[in-house]
């Protein structure tokens, strides 16, 4: 018995040492993972949900199209330098993008989901002098086709003219050449509008770019007037492929990293102070078992952090709720055990008997309440995955799940293993150290 306990004690301490090594320094790297992974709500970042318009996609091709969209978005995200972006398909027509830690500007955000299909249009002036831009079309093999950037070769690049103007240079492919010849041949001396969707492409000066056609263009052309930054992005997007279908933002959550950092610091402080208060209370009320319970709580917190860090579990704001509940259950498990011990000690049992009976009597309650909670957490996690704005529910469930499992382990393995060595020592006879009431009065 005593020997088994020593072995368990050593194992328990070894796990603790390993957990400590894993989490310190907290932002250090262990097993290729750095620090605790925080949800967007805590570390800042951008979470966007897009809905793809699949109306133009042939039946059966939806999945492949979405995967294409994902690849394109991934290409666009890479240059932003996000460490752990998440891009995933959700449901039949949605794409979720999570960019942690990024303070993204509106312009960058817009570029992420833009289709990047430039369409050339010609001006049509009606009798009142009002201008409408209609798609510039040509005919190939008897079919009327709109001149747009899908006929660009994927080798566009940005250059500057001798005058320092930014130029986006492109080359037409075979079909594009034919269309371009027809359109530019017809529009010499007239403006050629460039549109993205129904919005005109704006230059650096904020004015629509609509150059006047000077000569017939067949092989290559250039777009003048963009800002350097915009020209570069556009060139990349034209080359790396445009989105096959238009996207609409249906969900968006952005938090500045600064706000998140404040929050983490405050929560950590609150967590530590809360735990210290609980520990003091337990020690004052339960004496030596209280000290052991406090050690178990520290053990619990360290092990929980280590699991979060090593497995890359995301900790979110809602996780704090799960954390509180699991701390509550860790306290509860200890309280249940100690209350049982108290009853046994009052009945004049020896400390050793009181510990063993206390544990075995408290166990069914701990087991049932924890299993119910684990069950609920699993259901919430599983169903939570189907919610777009699911981060809170999932964050709550995963923290609760891990927290409860760890708290069960610490309450039983740690508390009991640490208490047993007191049996048979001089302290064990001083019952008052193990229970808030004098054993005699209640005998």
């Amino acid at each position, binding site marked *: 018995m005593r020997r088994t306990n020593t072995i368990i004690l050593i194992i328990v301490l070894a796990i603790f040492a390993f957990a400590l090594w894993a989490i310190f320094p907290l932002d250090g790297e262990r097993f290729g993972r750095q620090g605790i992974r925080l949800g967007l709500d805590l570390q800042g970042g951008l979470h966007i949900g897009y809905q793809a318009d699949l109306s133009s996609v042939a039946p059966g091709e939806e999945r492949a199209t979405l995967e294409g969209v994902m690849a394109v978005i991934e290409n666009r995200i890479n240059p932003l330098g996000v460490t752990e972006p998440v891009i995933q398909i959700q449901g039949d027509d949605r794409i979720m993008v999570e960019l942690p830690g990024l303070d993204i500007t509106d312009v960058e955000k817009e570029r992420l989901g833009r289709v990047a299909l430039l369409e050339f249009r010609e001006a049509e002036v009606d009798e009142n002098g009002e201008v409408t831009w209609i798609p510039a079309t040509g005919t190939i093999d008897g079919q009327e086709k709109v001149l747009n950037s899908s006929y660009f070769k994927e080798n566009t690049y940005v250059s500057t003219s001798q005058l320092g103007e930014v130029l986006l240079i492109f080359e037409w492919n075979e079909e594009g050449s034919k269309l371009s010849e027809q359109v530019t041949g017809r529009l010499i001396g007239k403006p050629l509008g460039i549109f993205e969707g129904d919005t005109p492409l704006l230059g650096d000066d904020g004015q629509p770019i609509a150059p006047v056609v000077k000569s017939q263009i067949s092989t290559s052309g250039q777009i003048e007037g963009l800002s350097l930054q915009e020209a570069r992005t556009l060139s990349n997007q034209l080359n790396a492929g445009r989105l096959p279908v238009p996207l609409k933002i249906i969900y968006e959550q952005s938090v500045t990293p600064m706000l998140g950092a404040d929050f983490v610091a405050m929560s950590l402080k609150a967590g530590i102070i809360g735990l210290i208060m609980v520990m003091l209370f337990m020690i004052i009320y339960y004496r030596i078992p209280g000290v052991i319970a406090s050690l178990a709580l520290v053990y619990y917190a360290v092990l929980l952090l280590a699991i979060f860090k090593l497995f890359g579990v995301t900790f979110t704001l809602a996780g704090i709720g799960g954390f509180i509940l699991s701390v509550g259950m860790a306290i509860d498990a200890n309280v249940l055990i100690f209350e049982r011990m108290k009853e046994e000690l009052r009945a004049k049992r020896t400390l050793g008997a009181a510990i063993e009976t206390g544990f075995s009597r408290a166990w069914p309650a701990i087991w049932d309440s924890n299993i119910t909670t684990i069950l609920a957490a699993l259901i919430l996690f599983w*169903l939570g995955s189907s919610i777009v704005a699911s981060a809170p529910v999932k964050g709550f469930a995963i923290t609760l799940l891990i927290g409860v499992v760890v708290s069960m382990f610490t309450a039983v393995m740690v508390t009991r293993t640490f208490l047993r060595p007191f049996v048979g020592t001089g302290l064990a006879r001083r019952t008052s150290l193990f229970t808030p009431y004098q054993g005699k009065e209640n005998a």
Partner: protein
Amino acid sequence: MLDIIGKRFWFLLISGVMVLLGIIALSVFGLKAGIEFSSGSLLTVGFEQEVELGEVKEAVADLGYSNAIVQSTGAGDFLIRLPELTDEAKTALEAGLTTKLGAFEVRGFDLVSPMIASETAHNAAIAVAVAAIGMLLYISWAFHRMPNPLRWGACAIICMLHDVVIVAGVFAVLGGIFGWQIDMMFITGVLTVIGYSVNDTIVVFDRIRENLRKGISPDFAVMVNHSLVEVLTRSIITGLGILFVLVALLLFVGASMQTLITVLLVGIYIGTYSTIGVAVPLLVVWERKEWGRLFHPARASR
């Protein structure tokens, strides 16, 4: 010995009144759904210079959003709740605010389309319902050696619903007076309360189960009361333990988590009370088939 079960009808009466008040509060004020459940945009801004809440309200209204709800976070930031904004509208609004109130930083921006909002509400409701059924089944199974195990599960779930209605009622009042909204933080809090409530009930039920097996009294009510008194200290100690964590959170994280902390403070204490005042009395009433006497508490408790 403290006689709790003898006063079971009084406890049930008090709880009945609280639930009734909760339902009245809910029907009078209703719950103010946050954008997660009703769609729209939420812009969080922090101005460089000091700005009054009234000024922000006026500026936002001047910019064409007279229905916008503006709230101060307490940390000097403002939450502006608007209808679903397009990128252009957002840019225009930000430019307008800068002109009127000076430079500011966008601390956060949320946008939820109506489709996502209704899905979220729907799925969150399903998740909670399925979790409740799962817990009911597990409790019934865990107490399957008892006569009528389903009653134990049902009492735990009724007790949990009692807690949720009261918490929701409190929030309806807070929503009516201070404009507090039901957001994901609230849902997280309610989930926590549900977990705690059921957990607390199970611990007490467990003691009843144990004492029933031991056969400490042939009278179910006497035995239950004995069990309740035995675990009373544990309920109080655990409740106090959680209180410490909550107070620390309230002091250090404060304003940005007031919804969660409020739900927990109300919910955890209602949850602790309701095990003693609802779940166990209900079980006794059910086991003794005293439903008919529910409406004559004074006579019954004698």
